[in-house]
């Protein structure tokens, strides 16, 4: 019945109630939609790193005078628990000659299957049997085409493939490099292993693997340096969380404004209904009952506004994602639900808190004063 009473009072001032609902709605929508967008942005950026996030990069500790990784250490790392795979890479800077150009370039030694797994060929196919693959930028710079012949360290190799642009990478970047098979590499260079890419079974195991390597290999001497790419992911996460909080703080201002409008509406309603409050007090309503009736109205406004706002915020988030990220699929993740819940709760909370003062004021009216009010 109090619910019914509250409902009818809100209906009595339809336009006013509607405005309050719209205010809350916009506030909730701003907070949720921005939250959703922020999460989407984070997810989009993080996705680029997800593939490499379970990787650790082991390199020799130059500062301690280690130039190369020892083969026995590499084999020990390969056998550590939770290591899915370890790719050992040699690299050297060698003179490369084509018909037109001549320059020192990074040359990597890698197994064919590892190259196939890590990179895609843009032209040709990845074959390393007495042939090489060339990074895209180098190919453009030196005008190298598939099946061209190039001279590396004095030996001639056929170009089997040009690789796709790999973008930014944190392990190795073949964009401006040439890749040879280990056997061919040995014919042109005598350097040892310079890099080991270790893949942990999962993201959670990265720290374990890192500790194992430190323990097993660096027990006596700091022979290797281990860098885990997970740190990058964590950095992204932190940076975007901060951005998101900042964006939401701005959005909260609109919720604050909505709160003030509810406060205003409820105060007007209290004054308008002074007589009614007096009547109810005269026929046996406690102060607390009056308080409840008014709070109920604020709650209803809050629930309706926040409810519609939540639904619309999904639409809003979807549209923002589509407009800015050109991909709305990020809307459908768990954090979206979280932000909707957050927006909804904050919306209802703001409404009730805004209703508190007017409700309290209404309940403090003396019955006789209220009754006399016209």
């Amino acid at each position: 019945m109090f619910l019914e009473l509250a409902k009818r009072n809100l209906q009595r001032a339809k336009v006013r109630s509607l405005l309050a609902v719209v205010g809350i709605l916009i506030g909730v929508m701003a907070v949720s939609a921005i939250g959703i967008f922020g999460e989407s942005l984070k997810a989009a950026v993080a996705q680029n790193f997800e593939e490499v996030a379970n990787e650790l990069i082991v390199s020799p500790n130059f500062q301690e005078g280690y130039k190369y990784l020892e083969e026995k250490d590499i084999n020990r790392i390969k056998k550590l628990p939770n290591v899915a795979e370890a790719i050992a890479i040699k690299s050297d800077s060698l003179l490369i000659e084509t018909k037109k150009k001549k320059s020192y370039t990074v040359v990597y030694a890698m197994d064919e299957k590892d190259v196939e797994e890590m990179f895609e060929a843009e032209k040709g196919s990845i074959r390393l049997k007495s042939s090489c693959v060339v990074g895209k930028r180098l190919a453009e710079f030196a005008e190298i085409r598939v099946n061209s012949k190039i001279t590396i360290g004095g030996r001639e190799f056929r170009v089997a493939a040009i690789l796709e642009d790999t973008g930014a990478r944190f392990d190795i970047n073949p964009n401006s490099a040439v890749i040879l098979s280990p056997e061919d590499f040995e014919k042109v260079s005598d350097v040892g292993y310079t890099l080991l890419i270790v893949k942990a079974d999962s993201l959670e195991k990265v720290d374990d693997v890192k500790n194992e390597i430190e323990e097993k290999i660096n027990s006596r001497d700091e022979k290797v340096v281990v860098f885990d790419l997970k740190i990058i992911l964590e950095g992204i996460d932190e940076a975007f969380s901060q951005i998101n909080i900042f964006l939401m703080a701005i959005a909260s201002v609109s919720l604050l404004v909505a709160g003030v409008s509810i406060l205003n509406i409820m105060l007007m309603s209290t004054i308008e209904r002074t007589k009614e409050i007096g009547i109810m007090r005269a026929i046996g309503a406690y102060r607390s009952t009056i308080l409840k009736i008014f709070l109920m109205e604020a709650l209803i406004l809050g629930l309706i506004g926040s409810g519609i706002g939540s639904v619309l915020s999904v639409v809003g988030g979807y549209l923002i994602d589509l407009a800015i990220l050109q991909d709305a699929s990020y809307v459908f993740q768990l954090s979206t639900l979280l932000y909707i819940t957050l927006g909804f709760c904050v919306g209802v909370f703001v409404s009730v808190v805004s209703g508190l003062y007017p409700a309290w004021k209404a309940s403090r009216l003396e019955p006789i004063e209220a009754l006399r009010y016209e």
Partner: protein
Amino acid sequence: MKVVELRNVYKIYRTEYYEVRALDGISMDVEDGEFVVIMGPSGSGKSTLLNLIGCLDKPSEGEVLINGVETSNLNDNQLTELRRDTIGFIFQTYNLILTLTALENVELPMIFRGLGREEREERAKELLRSVGLEKEMNRKPNEMSGGQQQRVAIARALANNPKILLCDEPTGNLDTKSGEQVMEIIRHQNEELGVTVILVTHDPSLAKYADRVIRLRDGKIESVEHVS
């Protein structure tokens, strides 16, 4: 038994510029089941007196006892309960809640008392029937005549079986016929059900319902007249 006792009651309104002694030392008792009519010129303090008896207002000085209980010792919730369970109000301007139907208006005091839906609905319907409004139950106040509204107000006042019915010019806004209807209902409550009635009026013709007529002037009791 005395249901209402006033001991040397003053109600003084003070402002910066003047002081109004709305009630100026009133002492009076009302017996259980009595029908008391209070008359007096405008501004003589009749409404003020009734509001004090109804625990809507507090005296500046003196004691108001309801059922032998000193009301100044009661807190706000206890006063609310007294109004809810023991006292029924009927006002000159009806004072119905405009957003609620007649039925809902009558239910309201029972809701405040915590009665279940079925019980209060049944009683509200019965009360509305007894004041001749079975057809108007679902109308809102502004869809009814003054006389009908006042009868809804009476039904509401009677909802929680009050011991005391306080009426402030209940017929003041009504034509003669409606006024008589209303007075008949009030008289019936008094005579058949033993409800104590204290009724304020300008209308000398209502004195015929009274056991006693008290006349006020300038906040003082001018005369008390027993009617046999």
